[in-house]
């Protein structure tokens, strides 16, 4: 195995070491140089602004996510209760703000999941819905990003249940992807899941159809803004 490693690295070195041909030395030929970065890294659309939220909502709806609004922190529990009123069971990560569950009807059976006491896959499969927070959301691409912290939980809990309810604070909504990457790069090795709408496929005649293996329903509760 290390033999293969040495040989591949040697092959690459030889391939790169060749005397550049006349063509490669031509003006305009592709040579390593400083990377131009003229793309938008920052935006005039302020993080958490009404405009940022408007763009996010537009993109989420376009990709068939259902958007709900909570005027403030104290309204979250009410919206959660409303969204999940028909759910028989719910899983939540152990770091979730318990206040969010405070108004759930008694009919909803809740399960806590954690790294130390994880639910089994079959248990998750029997649960209707999952409620989590998120790390950051990107308005321009309609993307919500989870990075596995205690208020978001293990990756499996947002995957197996058929409905994912995700709480996004207005101040977590950036306009552009590079702005989100700046935040994510603080902890790049955390497991990340980027979500843009419910599970979908374009494999049949290149028409998008929502709902395959991941959660078929995505509800986003936007708080504030």
């Amino acid at each position, binding site marked *: 195995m290390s033999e293969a490693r040495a040989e591949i690295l040697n092959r690459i070195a030889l391939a790169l070491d060749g005397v550049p*041909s*006349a*063509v490669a*030395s*031509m003006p305009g030929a592709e040579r390593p140089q400083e990377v131009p970065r003229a793309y938008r890294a920052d935006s005039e659309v302020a993080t958490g602004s009404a405009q940022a939220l408007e763009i996010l909502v537009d993109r989420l709806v376009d990709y068939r996510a259902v958007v709900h609004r909570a005027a403030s922190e104290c309204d979250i529990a009410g919206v959660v209760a409303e969204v999940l009123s028909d759910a028989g069971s719910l899983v939540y990560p152990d770091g979730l703000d318990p206040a969010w569950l405070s108004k759930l009807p008694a009919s909803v059976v809740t399960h806590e999941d954690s790294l130390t006491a994880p639910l089994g896959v079959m248990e998750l499969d029997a649960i209707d819905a999952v409620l989590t927070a998120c790390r950051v959301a990107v308005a321009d691409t309609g993307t919500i990003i989870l990075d596995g912290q205690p208020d978001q939980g293990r990756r499996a809990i947002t995957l197996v249940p058929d409905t994912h309810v995700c709480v996004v604070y207005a101040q977590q909504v950036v306009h552009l992807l590079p702005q989100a990457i700046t935040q994510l790069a603080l902890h790049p090795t955390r497991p990340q899941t980027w979500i843009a709408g419910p599970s979908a496929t374009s494999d049949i005649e290149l028409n998008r159809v929502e709902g395959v293996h991941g959660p078929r329903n995505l509800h986003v509760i936007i708080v504030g803004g």
Partner: protein
Amino acid sequence: MRIALAATCIADAMFPSAPIATVKILERLGHTVVFPKEQTCCGQMHINTGFLDKAVPVIENHVNTFAPVLDNEWDAIVIPSGSCAGAIRHQQAMTCTRAGKLELAKTATAVAAKTYELSELLIDVLGVTDVGAYFPHRVTFHPTCHSMRLLRVGDRPYQLLKAVEGIDLVELPSADQCCGFGGTFAVKNADTSSAMLADKVSNIESTGARVVSAGDYSCLMHIGGGLNRKKSDVTTMHLAEILASTKEDPYQPSQPWDTSHVIEVATK
């Protein structure tokens, strides 16, 4: 202005109506046209077929023929073909460099910088969009791949056509799709090329146009071949031919390949 004409090998031998029309437009606008007699071909066919070494003497002849433009013998070079202009601008220097002819590559680049496709010359260099043409027929325009994507001529041909008096310019569906010519591709991959051509021809016919125009006689030879095979009523005409047509000296659309109108007009 003194403008040197590169007629292109295919138009010189097969479709003289395009360079003749180019001469007429420029002379009508008051410019002097010069035809450097040593010219033959830009080398595109050899390059695109992979015979890069064999292209070098052809390119050398082209570059030497037109090098006097660098000494201000002429103000510009015009070529009524998007693909030949593309080869001159994007392939000649590369081919020379590959063959180790670095000086030739340098001269080729300098000559290329003074070489313009017809619509570029008229709009960018001479600053005219209305060339005083009159052509009272329904026309659709095929933009040709190399004019669009190598030269980026954009809407220049349309600007010129829209200024033609009496013209009924209609949009060609899927205009940006290749007609399937691609030089020897049409022979080497004749089946695929024919399938592409069939779609282009039916799109042209769907417009109800009397004339399909383009800035390149190689594409028009291909499209015209398909139209002629289909016994279509649509005629192919180079952009230059439409722009050369005036009330006093009108061009009449005829059978696809009956270019007698051009010869007749020219002989008058």
